């Protein structure tokens, strides 16, 4: 039995973040009002996505150094779950923007950057789907994976900070610096981030194990045939 303590930790942290996120005191601010609590759920999606994409890229590099089925599987499944987190991040962001910025899609640099980054990763799956040879598919997509991660960093972290953006933590808008200073919010926010990252890794690990099991079954079937 593999060690499961981090799965339990994930559940505890997330239950705590749901209770604390809805019940604990938050700064009383105009415009955002109670929606400030969305920070506990919307932002961890992006943290989770970045960590999962980073893991995906690490396994892509590992594959290029040591081409085997396992490294490729790890790389794909981390990217898969990372994409889900990214989509959840963008949809929750749209709901939040609708009530605080006035419309779901504001053409804000942070929003556009995030959307382009997700499209870059969608292209990764299209690339995988369009190559039939397994080794070629794994190698090409590993190279593209590195490119996708390198493209995502400026799109999400650098460009929005260089232009004016309404998104907190971006150019000319200290926004959440004020909230970040609130130590009460940190007490819920950081556990939520860790909890969601662990949950993402958990889901990815299940998909990886299923794929590896499937591959073993196919192998044994081929041997018997």
């Amino acid at each position, binding site marked *: 039995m593999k060690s499961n303590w981090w799965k339990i930790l994930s559940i505890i942290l997330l239950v705590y973040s*749901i209770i604390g996120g*809805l019940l604990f005191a938050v700064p*009383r601010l105009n415009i955002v009002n109670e929606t400030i609590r969305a920070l506990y759920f919307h932002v961890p999606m992006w943290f989770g996505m970045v960590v999962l994409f980073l893991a995906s890229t690490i396994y892509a590099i590992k594959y290029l150094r040591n081409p085997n089925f396992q490294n490729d599987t790890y790389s794909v499944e981390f990217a898969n779950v990372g994409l889900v987190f990214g989509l959840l991040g963008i949809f929750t962001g749209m709901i939040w923007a609708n009530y605080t910025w006035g419309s779901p899609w504001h053409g804000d640099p942070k929003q556009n950057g995030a959307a382009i980054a997700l499209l870059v990763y969608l292209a990764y799956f299209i690339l995988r789907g369009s190559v039939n040879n397994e080794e070629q598919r794994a190698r090409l997509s590993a190279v593209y994976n590195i490119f996708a991660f390198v493209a995502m960093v400026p799109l999400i972290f650098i460009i929005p900070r260089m232009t004016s953006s309404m998104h907190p933590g971006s150019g000319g808008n200290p926004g959440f610096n004020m909230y970040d200073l609130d130590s009460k919010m940190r007490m819920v926010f950081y556990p939520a981030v860790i909890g969601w990252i662990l949950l993402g890794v958990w889901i990815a690990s*299940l998909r990886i*194990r299923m794929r590896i099991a499937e591959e073993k079954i196919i192998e044994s079937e081929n041997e018997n045939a």
Partner: protein
Amino acid sequence: MKTHNKYLLLGLFLLINSALAAQDAEMADTLRSEGKIFVVVAIILVIFLGLIALLIYTDRKVSRLEKRLPK
């Protein structure tokens, strides 16, 4: 020492100022005082834990299948 105090005062002023300015922000105080917020928390927790239970069940199933795999 003197400049130190100045910055401290400025910091305190900014803190109090922002706190005062935000005092009138509309929050869901009624929902909280009536205790109905707990209903929302309970519902979200039930859904979340239900999905987690499904995840744990799937995890166990995968573990069982792995044991039966050809070596």
